[in-house]
């Protein structure tokens, strides 16, 4: 009996958690897309409606997800690895901070004035830089200022993109 047959004889179990989770993920996405396009008329083949393709694609996605999950029961593959929450929090959080502060925003009682690139830039670099394991705060601080200055020169002056610099200070 070859190794494969022995494996098969041991019955179904999840042999690749990564593929299995990937399949479930596709199925979930497909169900989500299907539910949200429920209201859209699919139309007929003669006259495709707005809902036809989203539903068709969602159905295929779901089917592929199912196949992927099932194949994970049979074939060996990668294991699911852990997440790095720190990277997500600092790097993506930094980007969100940039979005919030560049032109300011208002959300209920919270109010952030438009701070412009002069503040949003260093903020983004400093905050996201905290995600690195080997971060060095003084170095990061200097880099945040220098890099932002370079970006201001490049994007605002050399490329003249309409990006606010510091409306609260300079009025531009």
């Amino acid at each position, binding site marked *: 009996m070859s190794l494969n047959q022995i494996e098969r004889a041991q019955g179904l179990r999840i042999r690749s958690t990564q593929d299995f989770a990937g399949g479930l993920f596709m199925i979930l996405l497909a169900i989500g897309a299907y539910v949200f396009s429920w209201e859209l008329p699919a139309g007929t083949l003669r006259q495709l409606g707005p809902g036809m*393709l989203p539903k068709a694609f969602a159905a295929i996605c779901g089917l592929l997800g199912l196949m992927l999950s099932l194949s994970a029961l049979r074939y060996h593959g990668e294991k699911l690895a852990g997440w790095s929450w720190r990277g*997500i929090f600092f790097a993506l959080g930094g*980007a*969100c901070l940039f*979005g919030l502060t560049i032109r300011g925003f208002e959300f209920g009682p919270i109010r952030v004035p438009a701070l412009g690139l002069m503040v949003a830039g260093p903020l983004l*670099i400093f905050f996201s830089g905290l995600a*690195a394991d080997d971060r060095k705060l003084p170095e990061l601080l200097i880099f945040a200022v220098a890099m932002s200055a370079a*970006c201001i020169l490049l994007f605002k002056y050399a490329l003249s*993109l309409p990006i606010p610099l510091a409306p609260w200070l300079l009025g531009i």
Partner: protein
Amino acid sequence: MMETISHLSLGFGVALTLKNIALCFAGCLVGTLIGVLPGVGPIATISILLPITFGLDPTGALIMLAGIYYGAQYGGSTTAILVNIPGEATSVVTTLDGHQMAKQGRAGIALGIAAIGSFFAGCVATLIIAALGAPLTKMALLFGPAEYFSLMVMGLCFAVVLARGSILKAFCMIMLGLLFSTVGTDLETGQERLTFGVASLSDGIDFSVLAMGVFGFAEVLRNLENPEARDVVKAKIGRLLPGWEDIKQAAAPVLRGTFVGGILGILPGNGAVLGPFASYTMEKKIARDPSRFGKGAIEGVAGPESANNAGAQTAFIPLLTLGIPPNAVMALMVGAMTIHGIIPGPQVMTRNPELFWGMVASMWIGNLMLLVINLPLVGMWVKLLQVPYRLMFPAILIFCCIGIYSVNNQPLDVAFTALFGLFGYLLIKLGFEPAPMLLGFVLGKLMEEKLRQALIISRGSFYTFIDYQERPISLALLIVAVLVLAIALLPAISKKREEVFTE
């Protein structure tokens, strides 16, 4: 022939203005600058640098983008040779012998031959584009919606088969891209689809948001997690110009590589990615002493690098003539062109000939620039490789953020991109390779449009796609698509495929 020459001279007239030379130069330089960074391949480089072209006129912007593209390609090879980290699939092969050469103190020669081979391949590919451009565009006019649809189906099938890793997963990514492309207002009825009532989604998911989220942010998250051991070559770079012996050894591989890569690059679907693999395998088979390969054989750098560049350039052919991007990088070019108000397709050549031929000519100039500028700057690139990642990724992030903000001047887009970054990270964690998704996303809208047009013309009959009397081209394309999928799923071939893509 005369026509080709007059077209090319028009193109060079456009590309050789001082401004456009400067743009091409700047593009090549920054393209290499970002492309050299380990773990940043051409897709990421172009998405990061997209915003710096926003302020330019369309011709200038495209010339600069083409420059960025070659720069990124070349930067990728530099990293592959010096650090043993391939920026993307096509430079995987270069690491095999290139890095070995570098370890033996012949890094300079490896870089030199890569640049010379690329330049030669680029020259040939430019000529091919110029020669094939006009006839293919005429052929494109024969294509009705049904043929376009079938062509895209075939392209996607190729992309599935040629993607790295599991076929099933690549298929998932393409379908997901297609699904994402349906978000937004319906073309005919104006109904909102899958927008969740978010106003900025009614125009569909923004291309740059998706690209920068999945290829900019998610890559940063991936790299943060595994601080890759950088095996930067300590040995001297040595002299750059290969000696007579080396050139004699490399000449034939360069020729063969150019030929193979150029032909594969034209294929819709990601044909260009096969070029370097095919060239490497071929050189190894032909070689008198195959055991030298993997130990620093110059043929193993010269052939694949030429194939890589030839394919990278002929991949423009389907894009420029049919308006169909063959791979993720070209999908990015479509996005860039659309931002500048140009819809790729056969009409570009007739309506904006100076743009079309200017771009073709600038490809050649770009290749020349890589040779004259980048080689002497190798020392600088090596220094750049030593910049620690802890400083590199915040810089990448701020470039992305400013870029996304500038597309629509919408701060909310930055948050969306962060969301897509998270999504891309999830995909990576689940073992999906996101490049095919981008291709599916760009082709999705076009496919839906053509599908509907074809069905209206045929009064709702799907038979129109396989009607061998009326539409033989469409039928043939679909047959090729089915064949490709079927062949790839054969056990013997799929095993071989795995070997090729893991080597």
